[in-house]
């Protein structure tokens, strides 16, 4: 089992976590005109990097989202940041 660290609860078994999305996705303002291409890019395009990744995960046990930085090749965990800190 991998170990991920929830910024609030500490280190936990990977089964307690759920991948939400890549970090950095901003929802476009849907009250303005958005082209089909731009909307599709928002919905579906991913960086999917090989190596250092920044992802939003949920610790399902406590329900909190947080930013998890990992290496998607070595599985090394580089750090967890609470979402609010991360957005600052």
């Amino acid at each position, binding site marked *: *089992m*991998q*170990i991920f660290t929830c910024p609030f609860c500490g280190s936990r078994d990977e089964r307690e976590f*759920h991948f*939400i999305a890549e970090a950095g996705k901003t*929802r*476009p*303002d*849907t*009250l303005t005109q*958005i082209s*089909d291409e731009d*909307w599709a890019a928002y*919905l579906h395009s991913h960086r999917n990097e090989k190596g250092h990744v920044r992802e*939003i995960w*949920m610790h*399902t046990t406590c*329900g*909190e*989202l947080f930013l998890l930085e990992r290496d998607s090749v*070595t*599985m090394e*965990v580089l750090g967890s940041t609470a*979402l*609010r800190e991360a957005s600052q």
Partner: protein
Amino acid sequence: MTARRLDSGGLIDRSNPISFWFDGKTYEGFEGDTLASAFLANGVSIVGRSFKYHRPRGLWSAWVDEPNAIMNIRLNGKEHPNCLATTTYIEEGMAARSVNAFPTAKYDTKGGLDLFHRFLGAGFYYKTFIWPDWHLFEPAIRKMAGLGAVDREVLEDFQSAQHHAKCDVLVVGGGAAGLTAARAAAEAGKDVVLVDDQRVLGGSLYRCGVAADLDPSDWVAAQKDAIEASGGRILTHTTAYGIYDHGLVALVQSQGFGRAPALLRMRAEQVIMATGALDLPITFSKNDLPGTMSLSAAGEYLARYGVLTAKKPLVMRNNSLASATVENLRAAGAKVEEIEHVDGITNQGRKHTTGLRIGKESIDADAVLVSGGLTPLVHLWRHAGGKLDWCETRQAFLPKPATDAMIAIGAANGTYDLAQAIEEAEAAGKGTPIDRPETSYITTPIETKPGSKGRQWIDFQHDVTLKDIEVAARENYVSVEHLKRYTTLGMASDQGKTSNMAGLTAMAALRGKPIPQVGTTTSRPPFMPVPLEIYHGAKTKQLWSPVKRLPLEDKHRDLDAALCEYGGWLRPGWYGKGDRDETIQKEAKAARDTGGIFDGSTLGKIEVMGPDAEAFLNFVYYNTIKTLKPGSIRYGFMLTEGGIVYDDGVVTRVDQNRFIVSCSSSHVDGVRTHLEAWRQDGNDPDRIFVHDQTTAWATVTVTGPKARDVLGRLDTTIDLSAEAFPHMTYREGAMGTISLRIARVSFSGDLSYEVSVPAGHAETLWDAITAAGKEQGVGPIGLEAMSILRAEKGFIIIGKDTDGETMPHDLGFTIPRAKKKAAFIGDRSLHTEKANAEDRKVLVGLSVADGDPPLATGAHAFTETPTRRSLGYVTSSYQSPNVGPIALAIIEAPHAKVGDTIKIWHKEEVREITICDPCRFDPEGGRLHA
């Protein structure tokens, strides 16, 4: 076979004889014997047949690297396939049979296959069986393949214990190095666990010795005591078979033959790998003959089991380390002759070696003991992603320098000298590892000569020879991976422990490249085969994905409810022991005639609270929530960002800043995650709170014309009159001291109240309602009847009447898509080309003539113009006692206008059906608003 048991020596208990059976004969061994040592002691030399050519096979090794001695074992009436004789300790009454041989290993009817070996070389099946068809040849090949047979009888006792454990230092291997490191680490204050896969700690010490005048057993005992005195834990019979990410080591511990081993998931800060090294075979002509054994193994059989392998063995070795074993064999009375390997040397004999021959010169022997050089056991190192260096001196792959997480010591690190290994281990255990010391070990690589004469085995189990590797090289399967897969070398049950290096050496010779340039060995878990049961643990049968239970389950059982699994919950399908279909019809009819009482506790109740809750839910829902007044309820959809209907349900506004989201029973976790994710991403989470109350409240639904009468008999503080409590509103109150929430919503289409109390009071509520109901002729109804009622109204069930494409306008809910002025999840997706397509599948009703059988759920609507294709399918279909046969379907809009006829296909049968409105009961809604 001239092997025999000595009168003394070994770690076995001669006072405890054990009898067992092998291939038709009874034998005797002692407690502490493995099947292999007992075979040897009894002179059994042929223990199996090779996979392809059915050549006789004898024992090669004394432990886990054994490629040949695979048995099916029967004990206590249970059959255990594919057991390795060298690692299976004998027990009274064990009956072993060789696999892949009939009737016995000694006399196998398929032994003649070997005559055709020229045509059955590696990869031969890729070059033939093409005409006329592979299918013609396959059954015969399948029958011949495989080793042991699986017993189709389920074994009852296969529950494997699973444990989690952690430690500072995990030492893998209880030989000299491992014991020393464990002691040093434990004495330095670390939390240490030492694991060893044998019954008795000590590794190779028994055959190699510790020091003059020091009994290995005494030395081992002293280390063990010191380790335990410092709080270290020692596990024997335990193999570390894999290392996974983040330092998770998988350990399997034998619990005795026939019992499921235990799985230990060990989280170690640091792993010290003291796994030792293997003695390798030498590639020479007819090196697969029984009686050709690893020299170290002969040493092990002598030291651990008191068995002298041969009277007159020939020893052929290429390294300086084998001397101790040779001396021990001589001391035990064997007449050992040493011989140098030369090109062209060949084994002699037919079913057993009779010695070696060089040119015309024959040297007789009753065993050939081979030592081709040591190779460290670095599997765990590789699992953990560690790299290897090629050492020219040792002719072996060694672990690259240690990291904080992992250190290799002793023979596993190429430190073969005992004194050096102990010094190295001491330093590692203390936490101050030293560099690998210079070695005194000398080995002379024996060159593999491609094209040399004689059949020379590389992989004993899979019958891969040097010639096969030559052919593979000739055909350009030269990478290690291609070579392995093409020839199947290293892919047998021993996973190449004895064949990988030989194969690599041969390919290097063929390509004229140094070994490290050709490749290294990769290894993946498990280090040795592990039974599947260890992954199952106690999560068997009903404990596998356990079904969720209702607070009112006992009440339902009292009423003989048929409890079935629906959406992960155990719920009443119908009540009573009568005929299923008749009962359901009765319940559905009674529900409309008088009423019904229904356990709705599974329905999700997620509270969303806070000053921004309204705006939040307005964004989460397709429908407009802003305008929902306190005390009111609205039906709505949650969409995915792709615009697909994810869940439906009612949302209740309790007060200005408090809502209750009701969602489908099987979706609660998903909806909660969905709400939490959106709450925190893009909103101020201090102004919105999400709280799942689903299991905190029990809900009993009272539905039907008499619903008000029934509820009215309860002593509640709530005014149930139609004026005070209209449809789609919500009231809070109490029943005595019990908090009460009532939502007047209807899934049935009749007057209906969903009554909720804190779950602890569920039974009180149920008793009160059912008692009141009895007086009114209103009884419990199950999920099956409720499903019919809602279908009569055209009310959908998400995931049943919707699929992965359904959008809200397909269900007739078009207004928010056109008019909602606020942003909501999925909004933009409702206006893509696909969302606007005219041929989208829409929800319709299907009209079946009274007296005709209901349509089959899953039947498809279809057209034949221009070609036959599906237009959609029947999602729900029932016989309704109130309306006749009814069905809901999703069908492409142009073919789905009310009044159209459409062809319905089910299992080759076609019916012509008319499209109608999904709502077949009380379309004006008078019953709802009663």
